[in-house]
């Protein structure tokens, strides 16, 4: 693998500073040199140090760290219901996951945190296949299925069809069933256990309501820790958020309904938790799901409009208290299709009051700890891993450019181009400019 030198780019390095013009050198899978160029700066490295490097003149394009999705469901298949996701046969389902994994990378997400899989092993298998090169996809942390209670979110069995195979989640009741369930997923090799601690209005049990006993939760966390795994919770209700803090559940998804006590608890422990609200689900279920029978009238009755308001207030309050909020969440339903995930950054700016800088940081520098990778990703800094996007436009001016694949000029993961930047000249005639699936130049789109 040759070295790659990006020249003449505006560098957003993840530190929160105004972008600067400079050069970035990638050697192997690492960013080995970041220099400012232009008047008054020291000279770029001499050409002798760059022998054999591929030089990419960015022409002033915006260079930033690859984005990190904090709440990913590869196995959600862009369908309108949990049942429709769950009924996909496993063979088709794994191919779907592989297809989605590639899409995330196409769209600039070089890391993603699995938030739950629709069948026991889907996430684990995809993570392994990405890591061994069988398929292409982002860095990935694999999740379990959703662990839930009979009748809770994720129990899609019917009274006359009680077989566990019909359930979207893993249904347990009692501490020992929980223990067995966690051990099974740990055996399969997940990175995190997903537990549904609150309801979800679309299932008939509102988000304000909670499920599981404290003892069941305690056993889940205890077993997960024994195996070195992380716990992530679906926690919309106030009680469930408090349980996450009290019992040491690291990842808190949603966190819609908070009160002062809960916010105080979160603030006091803000380095111990990651919060990812998944606003896309609330927004689009409330207002953009009519085509699938969920008109705004219906979703209002379900309680989604009220929850959306509460969630926005909670996120605003958290932001003010310095609790980091991460993008991503619940893409993979019909009205939140995969690949549109960067809308979350727009929602952060428009609804939560973040600056575009904060939104960009939430998708980059803040995501490293979420990926359990500290500061090795999410930055354009010497020594960091080379997960790099080249953007046509300035996300700090218009955050929506990150939603447009054609504006994401190139995607590099771990020092390798997934999509190389287009060539300005010497571009061969078609068909090479439009390679067939499987053609060796898969990046030239």
């Amino acid at each position, binding site marked *: *693998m040759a070295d790659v030198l990006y020249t003449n780019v505006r560098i957003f390095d993840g530190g929160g500073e105004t972008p600067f013009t400079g050069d970035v050198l990638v050697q192997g899978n690492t960013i080995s040199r970041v220099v400012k160029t232009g008047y008054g700066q020291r000279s770029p490295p001499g050409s002798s140090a760059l022998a054999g490097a591929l030089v990419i003149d960015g022409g002033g394009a915006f260079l930033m760290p690859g984005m990190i999705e904090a709440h990913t469901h590869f196995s959600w298949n862009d369908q309108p219901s949990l049942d429709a996701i769950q009924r996909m046969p496993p063979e088709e389902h794994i191919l779907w996951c*592989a297809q989605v994994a590639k899409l995330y990378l196409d769209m600039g997400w070089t890391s993603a945190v699995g938030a739950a899989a629709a069948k026991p*092993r*889907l996430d684990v298998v995809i993570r392994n296949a990405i890591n061994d090169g069988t398929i292409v996809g982002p860095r990935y942390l694999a999740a379990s299925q959703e662990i839930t209670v009979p009748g809770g979110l994720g129990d899609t069995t019917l009274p006359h069809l009680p077989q566990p195979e019909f359930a979207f989640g893993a249904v347990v009741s009692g501490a020992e069933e929980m223990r067995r369930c966690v051990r099974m997923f740990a055996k399969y090799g997940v990175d995190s256990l997903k537990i549904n601690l609150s309801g979800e209005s679309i299932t008939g049990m509102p988000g304000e309501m909670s499920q599981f006993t404290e003892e069941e939760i305690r056993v889940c966390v205890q077993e997960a820790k024994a195996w070195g795994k992380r716990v992530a919770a679906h926690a919309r209700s106030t009680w469930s958020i408090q349980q996450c803090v009290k019992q040491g559940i690291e990842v808190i998804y949603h966190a819609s309904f908070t009160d002062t006590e809960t916010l105080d608890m979160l603030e006091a422990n803000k380095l111990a938790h990651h919060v990812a609200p998944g606003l896309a689900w609330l927004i689009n279920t409330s207002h953009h799901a009519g085509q699938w029978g969920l008109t705004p009238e219906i979703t209002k009755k379900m309680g989604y409009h009220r929850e959306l308001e509460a969630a926005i207030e909670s996120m605003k309050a958290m932001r003010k208290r310095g609790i980091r909020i991460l993008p991503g969440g619940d893409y993979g339903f019909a009205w939140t299709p995969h690949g549109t995930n960067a809308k979350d950054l727009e929602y952060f700016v428009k609804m939560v009051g973040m600056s575009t800088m904060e939104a960009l940081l939430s998708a980059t520098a803040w995501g490293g700890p979420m990926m359990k990778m500290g500061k090795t990703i999410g930055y354009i800094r010497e020594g960091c891993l080379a997960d790099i996007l080249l953007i046509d436009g300035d996300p700090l001016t218009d955050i929506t450019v990150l939603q447009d694949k054609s504006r994401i000029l190139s995607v590099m993961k771990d020092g390798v181009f997934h999509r190389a930047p287009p*060539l300005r000249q010497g571009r061969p005639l078609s068909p090479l400019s439009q390679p*067939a*699936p499987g053609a*060796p130049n898969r990046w030239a789109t």
Partner: protein
Amino acid sequence: METLFTNVRILDGTGTLPYSGSVLVSGNRIRQVGRSTAPITPGGATVIDGAGATLMPGMVEAHTHISWNDAATLAGIQTMPLEEHVLWCAKVAKKYLESGFTSCLGAACAKPRLDVVIRNAIESGQIPGPRYLAASQEITVLGGLGDETLPHLPFPDFSFGVNVTGAEEMRKAVRMFLKFGCDSVKLNLSGDNFVRGADAHTTWMTDAEVAAAAEEVKMRGKRIIVHARSNASVKQALRHGIELIYHASFTDTESLDMLEAVKDRVFVVPGIGILHAVLHEAEAFGITHQMALDWGYQQEWEAALESLSKMHKRGIRVLPGGDYGFAFNPHFQNARDLEFFVKYLGFTPMEAIRATTVYGGQIMLRGHELGAVKEGWLADLLLVDGDPLANLSILRDQKRILAVMKDGVFAKSPAMASQRAWGHAA
């Protein structure tokens, strides 16, 4: 979209000697084939100057097991979990296409739906791969080839194939695979020398069982394909009107006469690569040459060469391909079957090419439009660096397969200078 190959040596698959010329592809079909004396006007087509390379039809692999995972045993294939197995198959499908096999005929899969799912994913454009006919698992009998259950673990999930006993169980198994959408239903009519107690001479299915399968499959317009090494199994297949026979190692005058009588309908795909591999290339995987001799592989090898040479002389269509996907006979070296055909079965190189192209189109059930460089035919084409007639081994050298086109679209594009500049970046 149009593509014009100029300055190529056209090896059209039919047996005609190669000639210089140009070929115009329009959409998914070959629109024009011109000799050099009558050049084709490019119009808006992308022009590929072949610089004298050979342009030939895409090859057809007539006995493909994309779910065989290059393990040394059936159990090693069977115990791969389902999710990993599907991703394996997807990877293999892509690689077959890039290796120059634009069509593959599934010969059996290791779990019920693997072949069907991969075929569907290829057809929908979700994954790249060759034209594919999906097979069932192997249907076998207790103790036969493909029954991998153990006495204390009799669960069907442990079995490589589906075990049936009696015509009604056979009917049920066949219906299940037809429900899943298989193009072909595979029966193991004979044993195999690596199975203790069920060697290549054994033949175990009752005529009632085979008849039930044949009836069901025919009713739904699908095809039966059979593993038939023994003489009796070849005859049994022919008695039941089965037209695709794998292996056919052991024959006598009667079975050869029976084959010849239906030579316009029947195909034989011996898969001789694996016999050679077990005898000479399996030591690293625990099968010594002595073990192979003890199991009867040398005897079968000699019998097969004699049977297949006779079939070829009688004009029975014998096709290359088969049983790649074991540790000692790994995927993607399948084109060496062509060399074996020439070296051991009395084929000319031209006949070997015809077998994998024109006959290949026929075995894919598309003999009227697939397997030759002819005007109006499907644009499945290879651009090959060199002359396969002079040296067939170039067909198993990835670097010599310059380009692969399936259905008018490049699966492997010919390299160009500006593309090479990017090559080292990735």
